[in-house]
């Protein structure tokens, strides 16, 4: 396990309040993230020329296929070598390349405000993760948009590919602290319906909702031919119930109370919670969704670096 990072949330009170990306990433982290690239594993339909594969044919250096010559086709695209062999006219077509549209779907429900010990809250960690992803996207001149939701979509920002846009996006995140209930499934359905054309949807949530419904919503996204990345941010205490003393726990969203002895319940809890996570894992694997559990006690920068490298390798 890597060394525990210093929680970003606990900043010095004397420092002036930061806004935008500077509130989430420091220059060193940005420097390291600047070298990374987030690629889509699917073909995406952007509105600008870019580095990502498009379902369309267009001008590029990467050969796509041959097509029989038809009226209206430019003669300069005829592949004369094929004509020489077959005595027929074929047009040589190339892969069109476009930019990547990425939508961040960030959960701001009350349960995201949980942190055990000195670790950052799940929302803080998710925000930083969103900032990191956004920085990588914008740095690659791709576009990024935002859906910030609790029980409903609270903030929607269309895609943009400037740092100004990213700063504005993150300011919205800053200005909407976690609270209220959550309905992840409903929100994802809404988002799936609202995003046109194939895009990359990055969902960052603790997914503590009805897992069956959430899986259906994820399937909806996939049906819309969106590439989906699912980051499930969880606190270490949620994973193994590593609490010491018997206590009375109150659910952060429903207010339900339960007196427990963590030592006694830990093993059974891990069993139950493990099944819950396993359900997501299997469902995502079946839908070709990139699913990651992100404990809040791990260094963000290293996680992002490892993940994006792996993603890049798999996207080729």
């Amino acid at each position: 396990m890597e060394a525990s990072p210093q929680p970003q949330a606990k900043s010095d009170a004397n420092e002036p309040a930061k806004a935008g990306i500077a509130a989430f990433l420091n220059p060193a982290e940005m420097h390291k993230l600047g070298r990374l690239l987030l690629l889509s594993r699917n073909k995406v339909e952007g509105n600008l020329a870019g580095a990502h594969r498009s379902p369309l044919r267009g001008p590029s250096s990467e050969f796509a296929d041959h097509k029989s010559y038809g009226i209206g086709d430019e003669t300069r695209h005829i592949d004369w070598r094929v004509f020489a062999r077959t005595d027929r006219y074929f047009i040589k077509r190339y892969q069109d390349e476009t930019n990547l549209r990425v939508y961040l779907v960030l959960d701001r429900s009350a349960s995201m405000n949980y942190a055990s010990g000195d670790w950052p809250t799940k929302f803080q960690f998710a925000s930083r993760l969103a900032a990191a992803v956004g920085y990588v996207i914008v740095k690659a001149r791709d576009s990024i948009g935002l859906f910030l939701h609790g029980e409903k979509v609270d903030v929607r920002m269309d895609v943009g590919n400037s740092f100004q846009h990213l700063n504005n996006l993150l300011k919205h995140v800053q200005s909407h602290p976690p609270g209220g209930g959550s309905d992840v499934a409903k929100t994802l359905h809404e988002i799936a319906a609202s995003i046109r054309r194939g895009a990359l949807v990055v969902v960052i949530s603790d997914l503590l909702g009805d897992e069956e419904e959430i899986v259906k919503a994820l399937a909806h996204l996939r049906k819309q031919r969106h590439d989906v990345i699912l980051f499930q941010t969880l606190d270490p205490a949620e994973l193994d119930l590593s609490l010491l003393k018997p206590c009375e726990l109150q659910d952060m969203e429903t207010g339900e109370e339960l007196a427990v002895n963590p030592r006694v319940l830990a093993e059974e809890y891990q069993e139950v919670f493990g099944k819950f996570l396993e359900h997501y894992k299997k469902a995502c694997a079946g839908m070709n969704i990139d699913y990651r559990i992100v404990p809040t006690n791990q260094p963000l920068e290293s996680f992002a670096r490892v993940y994006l490298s792996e993603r890049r390798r798999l996207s080729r």
Partner: protein
Amino acid sequence: MFLAPLFLIAAVVGATMPFFLHLMQNRKRLRLPFPTVRFLRKAEKNTSRRIRLENIFLWLLRTLIMVLLGSAFAMPMIRSGGVGWLGEAPRDIAIVLDASYSMGYQVGKGTVWDKSIDSAVAILEGLRDPDRFCIFLARDQPEAVFAEPVSNKQEGIARLRTLQPGQTSSRVVPAVNAAMKALLKADPLREHEIHIITDNQALPWRNLNSGGLEAQIEAKTAVFVSLLGVSAPENTAIVSLDLQPPVVRKGAEMRAVVKLRHTGRPVDTALSLFIDDREISRRHVNAADTDSAEPSFTMPLLEVGVHAARIQTPDDNLQADNVFYFLVKVQEQMPSLIVGSESETLFLRTALRTGFGGENSIEATTPERMTEKPLSRYASVVLCNALPLFGQAISAVESYVKSGGVLVVFPGMGAKPEAYVSWTCLPGVPSRVEDLPLSQRNRVLTWDQPQHALVRNLREGIGIPSISIRRRLAFDTLQEGAQRLVSMGANQPFLLERPFGAGRVLLFAVSGDSAWSDFPLSPFFLPLLLQCAEYGGGVGSKTPFEWATDYLPLSDRFPDLKTPPTLKAPDGQPVSVRASVLEGRTVLNAENLLLPGFYALTSPESPEGKPVLAVNILREESDLTPTAEAEVQKQLGIENAAFAYDLETLRTLIEEHRLGRTFGEHLLWLALLLMAVEFVCANILGRSKGGGRDLSGSQESIGIGSGARFLRNESAGAEG
């Protein structure tokens, strides 16, 4: 019964502590927000029944631990036996003291007996007023000091101080029988204790003739056995002495052969022979030979008379058996009566006269005139072709043998085998007179009983005895008790012997003249005949010493005594001699000959007296081989006897029995064991395998416990 009953309150309070802690814990529970309560509820639902059972188990375990701790500090007492759980009942005790002479074994500044008396006194001093005691001494026969339970402790202690160990061995079991009877007879409802005080010696516990306990020791009777002797005693003692010959003629050679017994590690020792209070010689015995060697002393030439002699071993821890007393009897002559015709007894008369150096040692007569002689005057009577004899003559001869004489019979042509039938004292009745063919006449004599007193000295220096036999008596069967001393050839008796009464009968298979064989002409005729005569002198005499006894018939030893003599013990005190008339004869019996040493007959002419008896204490007791607790318990028929090896241990055992024994320490150990069980169970049941964090603020390191299993698996899968 508890020594510190106030701690029982602590036990009760302690028992309620787990319950109150449980309540307090519930009341002060920390309330925390948590996002995954629904999963916790599901987990709790799955495990609630198990958790409840585990909690109840732990609660009971903790309550039990607190109760045990409180009870342990309250020092509960448990009685080892008896009926008085709530209090002490009056008790009767019996003390059985081993009074054998081995109790005189020196241990430090005192003896085992001194320690035994101290222990007995301590037992009496530990009695309460209503308690009673009786005291028995274990000797050969149990001896009651207090035959019935009494309560006067001071008298009992005073009597104990006056007791001394005896000069005999002891048997504990009969004394325990007597003690049990006394206790049961007195008051069977009281608590009973039997205190056996002895040394470590195994001998008193051997049920030689005692037959074991007459009744089982009651379960409620506590038995304390004090084995106060040393664990590895050492002792060397002379256990027997053999004078060869038992009676010696003046000027003849005599040897004293002693047998030693040693207990403990082998040590060198030295034996000193004293005769008439003068040290005559000394023998050294190597350590390796202490048990097996039979050192002998050659006696000096002594004057006619009875000489007081003793052999001493060096001083050791048990001094009572260091001296062995005996008497040496020297006679002027060993008179023999030869019965037969002059011609047939020629060889015999010549041989005996030559051997004993004069005419006075033998007398000759004919069979017809034999009854005129007082046979009791002669050490031996030799019948040479004197048979057949009839009626009064046979009766006189057999009476002579029965009273300790030696009859030597040489056959002859005068008697047929039928002539021997009317004799009852002969070793065998010959079946025929057998003439041997020329080819079978040369016979080699072989010694069938080489260690027999008659022939053991004869074997030396005579080479291989061979004689020519022309005729012999043949025997098909021998009488009961008869034995063949010398054979001619294979299995054909040459000389037979049979004990008869106090005397012996020797029967030769050939005649005493040269008619049947050339035996009278052989070089070993003379020594064999002289041995017969010497043997006759010794057979009739009693052993040179007596074992200490309560009762000794004197008439057999001193037939000339008609009135009770004045017998003086070694300490100068007169010995009680009782006279009684039995079948018209006056029988004299000496009593209490228990003191070792020389007993003398005194008369007005000789106030000092002359030694007539040498008395030694029984040497069985010299075997100090230690016993084992298991053997003692086996003899007593119980398994719960309490053994003490010193006074302090005995006091502790008695205290534990009478007051009880605390098992607080056992409870503490049990509580400790349960604590360990509780610790293990609480940890196993608490599933504290992984790390944990206190949410109240303190930072601890987070281990990837079993709780992060899914995450680990997930990561591994991704890497794969």
